[in-house]
């Protein structure tokens, strides 16, 4: 499906719950509320016209006001892609896991949890694996993070 067809089809089936983010990319980009993530993912994964089976990437973002989790999904069958994101408040950064839909989300969610502190409810193995085993300095990719060993770039 083309971008316009995808937007029309998804909005028709999920009207009112999701929001389209205007962009110049070749893919549609939706804003999905945190409570709807699993339902929305299940729909785009199972729907025969979409069949978005492949989770290409799942990343965390810190915008200084809020956290975002961005999902990039593609379909090998229909050769189309969509992106969507959810927005989480800084003080309650948690969202349901999508491992039940895309098992590939396992390590992506662990990474986002480890580096941003975003909790994925229902994740079976939310353990450290990128940072050193004895790491005790929190979540280093948060914008307000200050590290013990970090040498700040000098002002020029």
């Amino acid at each position, binding site marked *: 499906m083309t971008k316009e067809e995808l937007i029309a089809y998804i909005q028709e089936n999920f009207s009112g719950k999701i929001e389209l983010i205007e962009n110049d990319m070749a893919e549609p980009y939706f804003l999905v509320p945190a409570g709807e993530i699993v339902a929305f993912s299940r729909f785009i994964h199972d729907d025969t016209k979409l069949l978005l089976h492949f989770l290409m990437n799942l990343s965390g973002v810190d915008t200084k006001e809020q956290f975002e989790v961005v999902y990039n999904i593609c379909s090998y069958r229909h050769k189309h892609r969509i992106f969507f994101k959810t927005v989480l408040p800084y003080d309650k950064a948690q969202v349901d896991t999508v491992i039940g839909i895309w098992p590939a989300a396992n390590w992506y969610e662990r990474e986002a949890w480890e580096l941003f502190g975003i909790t994925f409810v229902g994740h079976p193995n939310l353990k450290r694996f990128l940072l*050193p085993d004895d790491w005790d300095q929190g979540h280093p990719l948060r914008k307000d993070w200050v590290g013990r060993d970090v*040498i*700040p770039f000098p002002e020029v």
Partner: protein
Amino acid sequence: MGVNDDKLPVYAESVPGGGIITTQLNKIFTLTQAKSLWYLLFGTACCAIELMATGASRYDFDRLGMIFRASPRQADLMIVAGTITYKMAPVVKRLYDQMAEPRYVLAMGGCAIGGGPFYYDSYAVLRGIDKVIPVDVYVPGCPPRPEALLQGCLEVGKKLRTQKMEDWRVRNDG
């Protein structure tokens, strides 16, 4: 004698019957060692590509008698080629400890020497492997060209030739 004796650390004597040279065991030992520096592959980043290029046919490490080994127990020289993170640092230390004496370390590229481009604002990168293991030769560059690495390896050989067997670092693991 058929050998070019001004190139050898030996004192050749004309003995009736021939075939006898006198030398120091140390000199022969370090000479042979310098001509067969087997190195441990330790490529963690883009420097490893230059290391591979140096090992391949155009620059040809083999002509220095340098052959890569995948096991630290067979290696004399550890070429640390690439960024070492805090997570990787204990592994570097462990591999170094597993190498047999005499052992040498060559820090290749800016990252292994002092953190390189990751010196500032990094939570993950070790600022120089000499914080973890002793380094014999530093080869700067980002990454260094194969010629620079070859020069560094010749410097390791030179250093090795000046060492005495009693100077070998003693293992301090008890």
